């Protein structure tokens, strides 16, 4: 996965999507790559915490040597997009015109999405980074982002925006270039939601490559058949029952990579570092 130029991380809310994105960025940096980590929707406070920083800026900022990060600010990305991609004069991209256009982009389908994914793809295209790791939208929304270029092509037969949609669509579908990391945990609802996304991906063919990353996977526990009374026995029983439940979901949806359940109090940055260790050990 780290061999690609662009990795987009998605997953159901609460499965550890931002932690995995940060871990990927950390692992790539440890390999000596020049990495850009991007929070695609929202201010990216989760990604920031896992990268060991307070807030992400809307422009690429170096957090540690080789590790850069930014969050996509919609209004700003839109202005950039209108200038650089739509070749509109700068004057048209701020002030009342920009505010009106921003209101429009907030409601119009695929505009917000194409602006966000467009910004990501443009960063990839610039060639400044060895790898761009994206903390992407959750499973339920990622489809509209991945499909934005196609949607635009269908909705807008003419107009400059249609010209741009073409190369974006191609970059996403290039399997050597782009990968989607689908983060899940071995439980019923995340499994069902992941399967729904996988079905959608098979139908739409909008990304060239994807991988399933199972997070918070418990390790097997070998204990005697008769367990002692009290906390030690209870903890073993809980572990075994949870482990068994996880195995049945992993059988149903096998993962390309299993990341361990991390016990106890850890800071978000420690979580990312520990998960990056697993990546490295492969």
């Amino acid at each position, binding site marked *: 996965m780290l061999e690609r130029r662009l990795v987009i991380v998605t997953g159901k809310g609460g499965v550890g999507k931002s932690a995995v994105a940060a871990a990927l960025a950390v692992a790539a940096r440890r390999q000596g790559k020049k990495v850009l980590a991007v929070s695609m929707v929202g201010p990216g406070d989760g990604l920031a915490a896992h990268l060991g920083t307070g807030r992400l800026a809307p422009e690429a900022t170096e957090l540690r040597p080789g590790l850069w990060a930014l969050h996509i600010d919609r209004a700003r990305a839109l202005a950039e997009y209108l200038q650089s991609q739509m070749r509109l004069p700068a004057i048209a991209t701020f002030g009342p015109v920009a505010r009106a*256009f921003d209101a429009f982009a907030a409601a119009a389908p695929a505009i917000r999405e194409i602006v966000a994914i467009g910004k990501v793809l443009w960063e990839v295209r610039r060639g400044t980074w060895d790898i761009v790791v994206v903390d992407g939208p959750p499973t339920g929304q990622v489809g509209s982002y991945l499909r934005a270029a196609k949607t635009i092509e269908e909705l807008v037969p003419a107009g400059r925006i249609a010209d741009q949609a073409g190369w974006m669509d191609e970059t996403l579908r290039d399997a050597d270039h782009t990968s989607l990391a689908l983060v899940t945990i071995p*439980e019923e*609802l995340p499994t069902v939601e992941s399967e729904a996304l996988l079905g959608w991906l098979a139908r739409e063919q909008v990304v060239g490559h994807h991988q399933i990353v199972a997070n918070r996977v418990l390790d097997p526990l070998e204990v005697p058949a008769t*367990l002692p009374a009290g*906390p030690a026995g209870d*903890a*073993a029983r*809980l572990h075994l029952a949870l482990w068994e439940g996880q195995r049945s979901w992993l059988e149903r949806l096998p993962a390309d990579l299993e990341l361990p359940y991390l*016990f*106890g109090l850890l800071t978000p940055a420690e979580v990312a570092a520990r998960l990056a260790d697993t990546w490295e050990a492969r």
Partner: protein
Amino acid sequence: MSTKALLVAGGGGVGKTTLSAALGVAAARRGVRTLVVTVDPAKRLADALGAASLGSEPQPLEDEPNLWAAMLDASASWEAIARRHADPAAADRLIANPFFHAATTQFPASQSYAAAEEAVTFIDARAWELVVVDTPPAAGGIDFFTAPKAITDLVGGRLLRWMTGGNLPGRRFLFDRTARPVLRIAGTVLGTQLLDQIAQFFMDLRTTYDGVRRRAKEIEAHLRSAHTIVVTTADPTPLREAVRFFRELPDVARRPEAVVFNRTLPESWIDADPGGLPEPLASNLRRWAAEAHRQQELRAEFASRYDTLLAVVPWQPEPPTDLDALERLVKASEGLEKLLSAPWA
């Protein structure tokens, strides 16, 4: 019959649906005529609630005299809004507009709004003493409470005013692009065909405004008087959501009545002594004790910040598969029974 509404809120994946059902079963078994409204339950839970016949119409549960269940289908929501509030010709035009489909599938508030609207219909029916509503986790939970306003804003909002310039002019005015530089730019970027569709969409949508606004106001009033409990686990993402509810809900509705920590490990594990135990029992106890400790710290931090009833539900490795198991979950909890006998419940 006076109806109390209990809204069960919280981030995704914390067991909100299970706890809604569990509270519903426990209330019904105390003799309270109860309706549980769920959104997209996991299969085993749906089975427990008799999902074979579960639809958006409340169904009485077999052998459970006081319990009804309904499952919300919010997918057809926008079509329903259009059909309800626009005249038939405008509704047909709206639904046929390619922009309508694209815009509505991407407006998360619509699912929340549809769920809120349906839940309010059940509360208004006055057929139950208690309606427990499992809120959809769309895009950050609190959406459910702000959806009526978001919908009203979309239908009558600044985008429409921008495109049509205040009052509803004829299409002639709308397309006077030379007079509206923004539209000229939009036309260059998007192409005129899409712009025409968008304009038609908003003009038709505008005709629903009065109806939507009136209904949204009613829904808002209901949500404001309903009681909310927030479900979470001691994990960062759901906790952030829970904090958001406690911080932001008072602005739009009542302050939450309680926080429920699901999947809680026993506090007795924290100081349990692994000394003398063989491996791997000792190290397994140590790591789960660390986990129990982490949970306790996060609960304590929450409790110190928000003065509220705090309930804990033990971590069940197997999700409940029948009504008895759901009731046992309430009995095994600390605080949920108290919640059900609170004066507002």
